[in-house]
């Protein structure tokens, strides 16, 4: 037990040390000449960030430059809603497309080179194009999230569908399965398994799509706040929004991982490949 406590203690000490450096080193006179990074104008300080969080949580009315009281939750919700919507739409459409295409060999062969080409294009690069076409509202963000999520889910589902062992299908057919029964008890569970395995990555992709969309051309959301704060050099507000965003991201991805584990309880650990953001 002593060892474990020592380990936890040393980690806490490390965190404390980092926070201390962050807080006090910028206060050393002249430090910015030697190490320009330690300018509290740019990197703020733990104290100020904590104060801002407190301020936002406890007061009402107009405070601070970018993040006004009550505003944080509104922005958080804007990002969250777009992320969840994009995730659901992307996963469903990716699953269906992957399922159908993996079972129709000729069509899949025809489209294959184009799929490879699209996969090679980083979808994040399309963000400005989508913003230009769809504007800056919720719709554009969902389209962006959908774009990134769809391809990740699709490619994994498709790969999974193609990897279905013919002997498994034959065996069930001999046991008496009709076409529909085969679909329901063999094809879909098999393919869905691959889809479920990619859920955490898909969630991550959705967040990235929405937030980068907010960076480039948002009117609402945590990404938008961060961009505005960056433009106005409001370091504290930027940190507050960013920390909130990080917590949201970690929680969402964690939930997606939990969901994956639950749905794939019948599998020994097995990660699918294919697709990138």
């Amino acid at each position, binding site marked *: 037990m002593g060892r474990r406590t020592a380990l936890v203690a040393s980690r806490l000490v490390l965190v404390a040390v980092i926070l201390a450096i962050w807080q006090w080193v910028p206060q050393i006179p002249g430090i910015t000449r030697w190490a320009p990074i330690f300018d509290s104008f740019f990197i703020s300080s733990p104290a100020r960030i904590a104060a801002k969080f407190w301020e936002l949580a406890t007061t009402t009315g107009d405070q601070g430059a970018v993040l006004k009281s009550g505003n944080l939750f509104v922005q958080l919700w804007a990002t969250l809603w777009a992320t969840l919507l994009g995730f659901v739409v992307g996963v469903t459409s990716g699953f269906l497309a992957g399922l159908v295409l993996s079972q129709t060999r000729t069509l899949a062969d025809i489209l294959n080179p184009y799929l490879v080409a699209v996969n090679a294009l980083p979808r994040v690069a399309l963000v400005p194009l989508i913003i230009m076409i769809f504007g800056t509202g919720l719709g554009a963000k969902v389209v962006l999230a959908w774009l990134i999520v769809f391809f990740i889910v699709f490619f994994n589902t498709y790969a999974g569908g193609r990897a279905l062992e013919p002997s*498994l299908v034959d065996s*069930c057919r001999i046991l008496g399965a009709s076409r529909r029964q085969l679909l329901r008890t063999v094809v879909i*569970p098999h393919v869905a398994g691959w889809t479920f395995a990619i859920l955490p990555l898909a969630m991550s992709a959705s967040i990235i799509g929405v937030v980068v969309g907010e960076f480039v051309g948002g009117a609402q959301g945590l990404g938008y706040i961060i961009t505005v704060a960056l433009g106005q050099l409001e370091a504290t507000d930027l940190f507050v929004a960013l920390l909130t965003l990080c917590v949201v991201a970690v929680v969402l991805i964690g939930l997606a991982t939990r969901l994956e584990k639950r749905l794939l309880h*019948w599998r020994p650990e097995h990660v699918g490949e294919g697709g990138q953001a």
Partner: protein
Amino acid sequence: MARVMPRESAVPTARAVVEARDVTRRFTHGAAEPFTALDRVSLEVREGEFLAIVGPSGCGKSTLLHIMAGLKRPDSGAIFVNGAETTGTTPREMGYLFQEDTVLPWYSVERNIALGLRYRGASVPDVRARVEWALEVSGLTEFRRSYPHQLSGGMRRRVALMMTLVVDPKILLMDEPFGALDTHTKTRLHASLLEIWGRRARPSSSLPTTSWRPSPSPIASSS
């Protein structure tokens, strides 16, 4: 080329249940010489027989079994089941145990065993009785709710065997049923299989708790 072993028939004048007549199958791989896997192979399995086809790997055993089960078509020749031609189709009374692992990973052991019965629309009490029998005979009762990934290879093979037996196929084809397993497990499973098959002809003192038993004519291939 497959070699047919001398048979031990319980009833010497029984009719042929499965018959392969002059089956030929060639494989062509691109521009290479076509490879003749089977050349006018004929064999019969009579009712109540257990026929084993032995031969080294690559001699065409799996191909012959696939053709007999209707999973592949021969280049020439035909398959007959109970006198009727069935080339290219799988008759309902035929069961097939694949060489590969065909247990569905997303269902528990008991759901896997019940699979064929569910497909064929069996009644709930019927399903229950047969699954009970299968679990008991294969020694998997305490694993009924386990998932395939939690079982060893030998246990999964037992599940696969039970899946095929539980629908009471009159003809059972088995392709290298215990090929990938270690000798010890192989011997045990061989013994179980023979015991199950033997029970349908003679009642035994260790009757399973239900009165139902399958009664197949098995054909197996092994190396």
